[in-house]
Every structure is written in structure tokens, then in C-alpha cells.
């Protein structure tokens, strides 16, 4: 009874607005920025610092920076010394990728769509840069149009998922053939590949090939066969015990010595092999973590159903383990993508290496800031796209998790 009275009494007090100082912008400012005199001082000091940084940065970017270093060397930064008259091959590879991206966007929507839109946005930005060649602009516009056209086409081709996937897998060898020639076109030696093209190629090769290798190493490390097991353990521990740069030096300088004269493996291929072997060892450890997280009951249930070791691994154990370690694996992939800049040290001119070459050109003296900022921006955009894709993939595969 007493309770009821209390409630009634409370209701009878008319509602009033809270004091102005505790809500809205003013309230937020008081609460978070000026709650005591120490906080007030900190706010003023850091506000000033931030203001100076922002103003100076903007001023530098828009008025002081010599962006002509980027525009003048745009082609070098993107594709290195790749002959201008053969550039159409790079564009054909690009166009094929755009075609697949557009189709995938139409078929899968979601993440694939977001990534494709991001790529299209990059195309549009590059195409609208004032300094790019008219040819580049035409190719980019063709690509954009193609993406949009194939998107609508893809919407109707939802039954052809399998072929699109096969297309993606074929894309890699096709690109390699287009770029290097292989008898179909004139040969363009890998020593002429450079810039962002080289960065991308090394990263993609390392990621694509180290993944199956890493899975095999992780499974091998848990194998009951002692020879397999100890080989995998020795390999993983050896590679993980050596810095990446050492592996690159071994691949570049010592491999020719081991192989003797006459056997000449291309510099770029050597770097790719180095990255693949390195990445595989780390991936194997990530995947092993996933394998260990699978409860014993899953193995037993699979065995009790009569599944043999291969079926058990392929259908039950691997899918669950890989899903569990997607974030770690993508972290590794992003790491490898950024580590490709190390090839500059062993004499290849990837994006960063090309940037350094440009800076050392007397014509562009004192433009480090501009060049390095541009390089950083390119890496930032692509790494973020990778981690975004990983987050979405995780979400999509998380359906009905325990």
C-alpha cells in the first residue's frame, strides 16, 4: 500500500526539463572537456596542438606540397619500367579482373559488391586526376562501364557461380602470361616489372601459394607419421627463426651459388618463392591453432560415422579450423602485403623501391614527403580493403555458430 502511495506521489510531480548545462552540446562539453580545471587546461593545450597540426597539414597538402613529383612519375610508381608500348597487356589483365569483379558483384552482392564499388571509386578517382594520360583515362572509363554492365549481367547469371570461381582461379596464370609474354606476345623480362604492379604480384603469389602450403604444413605437424611430423616442425621452426630479410637475401644471393652456374632463376620469381615459403610457415602456425581449437567430439563423431581420414579432415576439421583463424590469417596476409616493400633492399623496384629511386633523382630533390605519403596512402587503401573483406567473410561464415 505504502508503495502505491509512493508511486502516485512521484507521478504527481510534473516533469521538468533537466538543467541546460547537463544536456546537449553544452552538457557534453562540460562533462567531457571542462569537468575540472586540470581537464580544462588539457583541453586547451591539446586543442591548440591538434589545431596546429590540422591547419599545417592542410596547408602543406594543398599549397606547399610539390605533387607534380607524383604526376610526373605516376606511370613509374604504378608499373615501373614496363614498356609503354606493351602497357595494353597490363590493361587487358585489369579489364579481365574488372569483368570478373562486375559479374561477382551481380551474383554475390554483399561484400563482393562493396569491394567492387571501392575499386570502381578508385578507378574514378584515378581517372579524374588531372595528370593521367588520355589513354589511361579511356581504359579506366572502359573498365568502369564494364563493371556496371557486368553487374547487371551477373544479376541474371546466378546459376554460373562455379564458372566465375574457376575464372578467378584462371585469372592468375592468365595475368602472368599476359604480363611476361610466354611466346604469345613479346617477352617482357621481370626485371622491367616494377612499382605497384610488382608489389601486387608478389603479394598475390605469396598469398595464393602459401595458403595451401600452410594448410599442408599445419596438418603435417599433427601427423602421426614421425618423418612427416618432424620435417614440418623443422621447416616451420627454421623459417620462423630467421628474419624475412635474411630469407630474401638467401633467395637472391645464395641460391644462385647453391644451384651452380647455368641454372638461372629469375629475380622476381626468387623473391616470390622467398615470400611464399616465409608466409607458409607463419600460416601453418595460425592454422594449427585453429586445428587445436576443434573439440575431440568432432573427430569422434566423424570417425563413428565411418568417414576416413581425408573426408574427416576436408569436411569436418578444416572448415571449422579455418573459420576460427580467419582474422589471424588475414592479419598474416596484410603483413605479407606490406612486407613486399622489403624487396627494395634486394634490388627490386616495387612501389616503395620506385619511390626511393624517384627521390634520388636530382630533378625531384626534396620531395620525400610527397612520395612516401603517396606510397603510404596506396598501402593504406588496399590493406583496409583486405581487412574489411575479412570482417565481412567472418560474419558471413559465422552463420549458426555455437
Amino acid at each position, binding site marked *: 500500500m505504502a508503495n502505491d502511495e509512493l508511486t502516485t506521489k512521484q507521478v504527481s510531480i510534473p516533469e521538468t526539463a533537466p538543467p541546460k548545462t547537463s544536456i546537449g552540446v553544452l552538457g557534453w562539453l562540460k562533462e567531457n572537456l571542462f569537468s575540472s580545471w586540470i581537464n580544462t587546461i588539457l583541453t586547451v593545450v591539446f586543442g591548440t596542438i591538434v589545431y596546429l597540426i590540422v591547419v599545417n597539414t592542410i596547408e602543406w597538402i594543398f599549397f606547399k606540397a610539390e605533387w607534380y613529383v607524383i604526376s610526373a612519375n605516376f606511370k613509374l610508381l604504378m608499373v615501373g619500367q614496363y614498356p609503354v608500348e606493351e602497357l595494353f597487356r597490363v590493361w587487358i589483365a585489369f579489364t579481365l579482373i574488372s569483368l570478373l569483379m562486375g559479374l561477382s558483384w551481380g551474383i554475390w552482392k554483399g561484400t563482393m559488391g562493396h569491394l567492387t564499388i571501392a575499386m570502381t571509386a578508385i578507378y574514378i578517382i584515378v581517372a579524374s586526376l588531372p595528370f593521367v594520360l588520355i589513354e589511361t583515362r579511356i581504359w579506366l572509363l572502359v573498365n568502369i562501364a564494364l563493371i556496371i554492365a557486368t553487374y547487371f549481367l551477373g544479376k541474371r547469371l546466378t546459376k554460373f557461380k562455379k564458372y566465375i570461381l574457376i575464372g578467378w582461379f584462371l585469372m592468375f596464370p592468365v595475368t602472368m602470361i599476359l604480363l611476361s609474354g610466354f611466346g604469345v606476345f613479346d617477352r617482357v623480362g621481370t626485371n622491367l616489372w616494377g612499382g605497384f604492379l610488382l608489389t601486387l604480384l608478389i603479394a598475390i603469389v605469396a598469398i595464393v601459394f602459401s595458403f595451401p602450403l600452410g594448410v599442408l604444413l599445419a596438418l603435417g605437424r599433427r601427423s602421426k607419421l614421425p618423418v612427416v611430423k618432424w620435417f614440418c616442425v623443422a621447416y616451420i621452426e627454421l623459417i620462423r627463426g630467421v628474419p624475412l630479410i635474411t630469407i630474401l637475401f638467401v633467395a637472391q644471393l645464395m641460391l644462385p651459388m647453391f644451384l651452380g652456374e647455368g641454372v638461372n632463376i629469375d629475380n622476381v620469381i626468387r623473391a616470390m618463392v622467398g615470400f611464399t615459403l616465409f608466409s607458409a610457415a607463419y600460416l601453418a602456425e595460425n592454422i594449427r591453432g585453429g586445428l587445436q581449437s576443434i*573439440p575431440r*567430439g*568432432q573427430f*569422434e*563423431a*566423424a*570417425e*563413428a*560415422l*565411418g*568417414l*576416413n581420414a581425408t*573426408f574427416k579432415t576436408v*569436411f*569436418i576439421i578444416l*572448415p*571449422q579450423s579455418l*573459420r576460427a583463424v580467419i582474422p589471424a590469417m588475414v592479419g598474416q596476409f596484410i603483413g605479407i602485403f606490406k612486407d613486399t616493400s622489403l624487396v627494395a633492399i634486394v634490388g627490386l623496384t616495387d612501389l616503395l623501391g620506385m619511390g626511393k629511386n624517384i627521390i634520388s633523382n636530382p630533378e625531384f630533390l626534396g620531395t620525400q614527403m610527397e612520395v612516401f605519403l603517396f606510397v603510404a596512402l596506396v598501402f593504406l587503401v588496399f590493406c583496409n580493403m583486405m581487412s574489411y573483406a575479412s570482417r565481412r567473410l567472418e560474419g558471413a*561464415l559465422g*552463420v*549458426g*555458430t*555455437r
Partner: protein
Amino acid sequence: MFEEFNSETPLDQREDIVVCNNINKWFGSLHVLKDVNLTVKQGEVVCILGPSGSGKSTFIRTVNGLEEIQKGEITVDGIPLSNDLSDIEAIRKETGMVFQSFNLFPHMTILKNITLAPIWVRKWPKAKAEKIAMELLERVGIPEQADKYPGQLSGGQQQRVAIARALAMQPKILLFDEPTSALDPEMIKEVLDVIKTLAGSGITMMVVTHEMNFAREVADRIVLFDFGEIIEVGSPSELFDNPKHDRTKLFLSQIL
């Protein structure tokens, strides 16, 4: 669907399907199964009771080779259980198993969980496997859940799916390892009801359980385990109403 013999034949005249001869097992130096002898006839329902830690779960897991034995012989459906993987896989084709913790595959839908082994081990066409899977889901009462994932189902529903998954391989023997121990009380009944209907269908079953009333109702024979050995074997009425062994009496007095 499991009738391969005349179920009217009295139990003692039927063929043996599981024969365990003097099996012994050690975990390290711990002797967990001591000279266990048990013969199960075709179509027989055997319930295995006993205090926890008595070795009954370990015993049932030796039957399909999930636990290795160090001494003794096990023959299942005429196939001797050896270290040879092909023998073990042949036995596992004929024995379904239902676990305490369900062990459904969390990354597959209910239908995929059930059809996986029939498609890849029995090599059935997908359509046939799916048809039989849907029939089995009808039988355990949850056909509407076929496209969900295990994580979206209640414990009782998951265990019924696990039973359907074991049945999909059309095994001759079903092994239940404490099928209701991980369930909330209100879900135990729905699972036991499914097992009861199976007991009448002619399939051979070995059930490790703590559910006394259930054992009494469905079992042809009851086996009492303690300290890794079989203390007493008998029909439900013999064992529950007229126990011979002191340890059986003690166990029953603690439970009932």
C-alpha cells in the same frame, strides 16, 4: 527397415552380433576394463548401468574402435576389430553412435549433418540421401528444422538430430553413450521416447544410461558395471527385483 531376421525368434536362438571376449584396457597404469565378456544378439537391446567412473562409457566406445583395447577380442557383425583401419572403418559403417554431447557438426545444416556420411561413405546419390534424411527427421519429429544449423536448436532437438544422423547410415547396431546426460530434465523425455520407438524396430542397441525406468522398460538385458568389470547381467526384472550381487544391491539402493 532394419528387419533382417525374424524378430519372433527367441533371443537365445538368434545370431551373435557383438562378441566381446576378455577385453582389457588400461589408461596409463589405471586398469579401466578388466576381463569384460559380453555377447549381444541381433535385435537385442542391452542397457549398461553402473556408477560414474565404472568404465561403462569406455566399454561402449571400444565396440566401434574409438578406444583401443590392449588385450582381448571384439567381433562386430562378424568382423574382428583389429588395428587395421579398413576393419575399423568397416565396423563403423555398421555401427551408429550417439554421444552425450551430441557432437553435431556446427558448420553444417541439419540436413547436411545427416546426409554427409551416406553420400561420402555409402556413396548414395544426393537425392536418395536427402530423401532418407527427411524421413528420419520425420521419425524423430523435427522435419521443419532441416535447414537450420545445430546452434539454433535446443539440446533435445540436437540429440534427436544426432540419432537421425546415426540412423542415416542404416547401421545394424546403435551405440548410445549416455544420450540424455547433457539434457535439461524437460528434454530428456522427448529423446527417450525416440529411443523407445527404435527399440521396437528390431535394431540392435547398446545403451549406457542413468535412466533406470527407461532401462527397465526397453532393455532385454541389463548389464551392471563397477570398477571396470561386469558385476551382474540379467533381465530387467531379475536385476531390479531380485539382485544377486551385493554391489548391485548397493548401487540400486543408492539410485532408487
